[in-house]
């Protein structure tokens, strides 16, 4: 004879799985995950911004363009260096600047790198020692691109430019080449009478401002030193004096970066728990309300005890939730295998927490415990309600209580997984599953994992006893909605018929 709990659970599962909303929900998440990046790719603004240099003297513009190009090459070199370190490619040319990971690259180093062929040459050198599955180097888009200055603008005075340029910066109707910034450098810049002017649609980016300021300041210093009788070569050399700056940071995938990556999977699991709970919980709620409102409950209770009905419904709902999570996880793994490369590279460190069996076990424990704890609340609400409208009055505060702090927990965990606030939340049973799941990737002391787990188990046991009483007492009392006082009495085992 099949256990009645399993029969109830199987029926519950089949009823939910037969609904259209189940399948729509099941497909929405993978679709959203697939469409999201595609949509953002199409909607994303081009990273490279355009700059128009208006320089009547013809002396400043080449220096600014040169400086922007140099900065761009520095970004490429830094990116190459991280790539080389990530994929263990330094041995291809240990003397190359990209094989030196611990400093800010000087202008000279960057110029040498660019003259040697830049990223293309370096990538070709690295390829000699790269493993077959090493993804190719993805060169970052340049920050800025200099666009030609139309003759009409080049010949205009500042007053005319003030009329013309605002209309050309990000105009509502794109005509011709889009323009993000226009920079006017008067021939006598720095004299105090004619300021350098920038036209922009918003606050100009810091990197552009620093490049402009550095270039023009150096030109002014040169003029000043030459005015003081210093030879041009000496003045130029003085302008190029710069300290060597060493940067000490963890290698790629370590430190804060590692913490963030390792927290992604636990955070995702925590989010999936919340999502699937809300969905499967509301379906179970509908089922329980249907049993009450359709006057089915007495027929069912003649065959199964209220406890068997309660556990059957809980197991059925947990099975629905786990199925959803399994399908979503399957889709994610399928995508990872299908795409290899970047996603696989990302997934490897993200899945690292699961390499420790204790972390994997703790994640499964907290996931299931969270499911049982919240499902029991939904089930009791269903048993007390004759209609979905009835249920809403209980459901709204409960949902707020459970779901609202989730965003705060996620942010707090990413900022500092062992902050006092996050640790306190781990000891509050209704938040413990979400918080602990989110924290597990970054590492939680064993005593805390066990302590919070035991507290949670004790809370669930008490919850099952107290809400179980409410569930049993409410099953047959259709039409009477218990108030808070009666709920309290029912939980304490009084007023039970």
């Amino acid at each position, binding site marked *: 004879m099949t256990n009645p709990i399993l*029969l109830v659970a199987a*029926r519950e599962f089949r009823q939910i799985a037969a609904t259209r909303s189940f399948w729509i929900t099941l497909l929405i998440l993978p679709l959203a995950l697939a469409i999201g990046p595609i949509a953002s790719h199409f909607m994303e603004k081009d990273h490279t911004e355009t700059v128009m240099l208006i320089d009547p003297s013809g002396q400043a513009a080449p220096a600014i363009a040169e400086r922007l190009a140099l900065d761009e090459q520095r970004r490429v070199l830094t990116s190459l260096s991280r790539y080389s370190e990530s994929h263990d490619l330094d041995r291809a040319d240990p003397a190359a600047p990209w094989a030196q990971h611990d400093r800010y690259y000087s202008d000279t180093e960057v110029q040498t790198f660019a003259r040697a062929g830049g990223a293309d040459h370096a990538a070709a050198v690295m390829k000699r020692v790269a493993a077959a599955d090493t993804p190719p180097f993805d060169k970052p888009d340049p920050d800025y691109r200099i666009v030609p200055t139309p003759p009409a603008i080049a010949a205009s005075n500042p007053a005319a430019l003030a009329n013309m340029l605002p209309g050309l910066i990000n105009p509502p109707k794109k005509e011709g080449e889009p323009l993000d910034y226009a920079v006017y450098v008067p021939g006598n810049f720095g004299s105090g009478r004619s300021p350098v002017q920038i036209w922009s649609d918003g606050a100009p980016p810091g990197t552009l401002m620093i490049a402009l300021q550095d270039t023009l300041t150096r030109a002014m210093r040169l003029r000043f030193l030459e005015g003081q009788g210093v030879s041009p070569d000496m003045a130029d050399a003085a302008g190029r004096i710069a300290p060597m700056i060493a940067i000490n940071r963890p290698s790629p995938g370590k430190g804060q970066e590692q913490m963030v990556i390792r927290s992604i999977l636990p955070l995702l699991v925590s989010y999936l728990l919340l999502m699937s709970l809300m969905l499967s919980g509301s379906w179970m709620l509908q089922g329980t309300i249907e049993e009450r409102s359709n006057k*089915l409950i007495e027929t069912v209770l003649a065959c199964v005890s209220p406890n068997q009905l309660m556990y059957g419904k809980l197991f059925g709902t947990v099975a629905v939730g786990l199925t959803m999570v399994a399908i979503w996880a399957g889709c994610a793994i399928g995508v990872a295998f299908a795409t290899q490369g970047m996603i696989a590279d990302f997934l490897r460190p993200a899945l690292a927490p699961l390499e420790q069996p204790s972390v994997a076990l703790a994640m499964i424990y907290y996931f299931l415990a969270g499911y049982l704890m919240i499902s029991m609340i939904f089930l009791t609400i269903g048993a007390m309600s004759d209609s979905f409208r009835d249920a809403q009055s209980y459901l709204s505060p409960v949902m707020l209580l459970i779901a609202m702090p989730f965003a705060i927990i996620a942010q707090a965990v990413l900022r500092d997984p062992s902050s006092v606030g996050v640790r306190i939340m781990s000891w509050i049973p209704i938040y413990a599953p979400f918080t602990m799941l989110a924290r597990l990737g970054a590492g939680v002391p064993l005593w805390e994992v066990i302590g919070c787990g035991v507290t949670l188990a004790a809370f669930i046991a008490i919850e099952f006893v107290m809400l179980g009483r409410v569930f049993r007492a409410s099953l*047959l009392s259709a039409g009477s909605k218990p108030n808070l006082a009666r709920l309290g009495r029912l939980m304490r085992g009084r007023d039970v018929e």
Partner: protein
Amino acid sequence: MPALLLDSVTKDFGEKRAVDDLSFAVRDGEVFGFLGGNGAGKTTSLRMVLDIIRPTSGRIEILGRTPGRENSADLGFLPEERGLYRTMTALDTITYFGRLKGMTRNDARREGRALLDRFGLGGSANTKIDKLSKGMAQKVQLATAIVNAPRLLILDEPFSGLDPVNQGLLEDEIKRLSRQGATIVFSTHVMQHAERLCDRLLLLAQGRKAFEGTQDAARATLPARLTILSRTTPAGLPGVVAVTEHGGQDGWTEWGVSLAPGADPGDLLQVCTERGFALRRFEQSRPSLHDVFLHIVGGEEGRA
């Protein structure tokens, strides 16, 4: 061993006593009527029998065992308030309840199909409940109660809400199951059904037993009423407590005669014969269960 035994069973809901010191036994194989007005305690008693609720005090035995779900394989139950899972098909619904009562899936489906065929719903086996008419759904509900061929079938107000066709079908099923040896307990406040089906009955009033016994014994609690045609008044004859003259013709008069409770009309006929009391008609009108119900339960409820 009785199929069902209640011994001094009492059930209180807070301050309210729903069932008060109720004792009765249902013999194996009999059709037992559990009669009473609204709020008399019928449903509460049956829920205690099914272990849906527990008695405050007293003892219940069902097929020789204490109430519990372990009895469900031998039990059938049709509640007063009926409903089914709207999105399940008729056959799946019957199979589900059959399995909850311990049947294998195959047995439950086979029996479910047989019942649906017998109820004329063979073609709707795979139709969802919410696509069936109310009458069809009622048949499916009955099928869920009897799919396991129960040894004890408990029906709570089974005829309420049924159209005459389904009432007939239910009566036939009760008779069929009774012929097969099942014990049937049903509550009702429609006396005609009880009159046609019950071997014995129990009258419940205000949660207390007002009567238990056969239909004849129930009727005997009412004074016998006679219609006689005689030349002289029957007043004064032994057992006669009241006489009403209904008119006459050609020297004969029709009298309505009430006998003392427990007095046998046969004894009165014998006395008339022995005394040479001329009679042209001697007609006994048998009291209905309805009259008995009003006499016993009406009095109890009137006193409450």
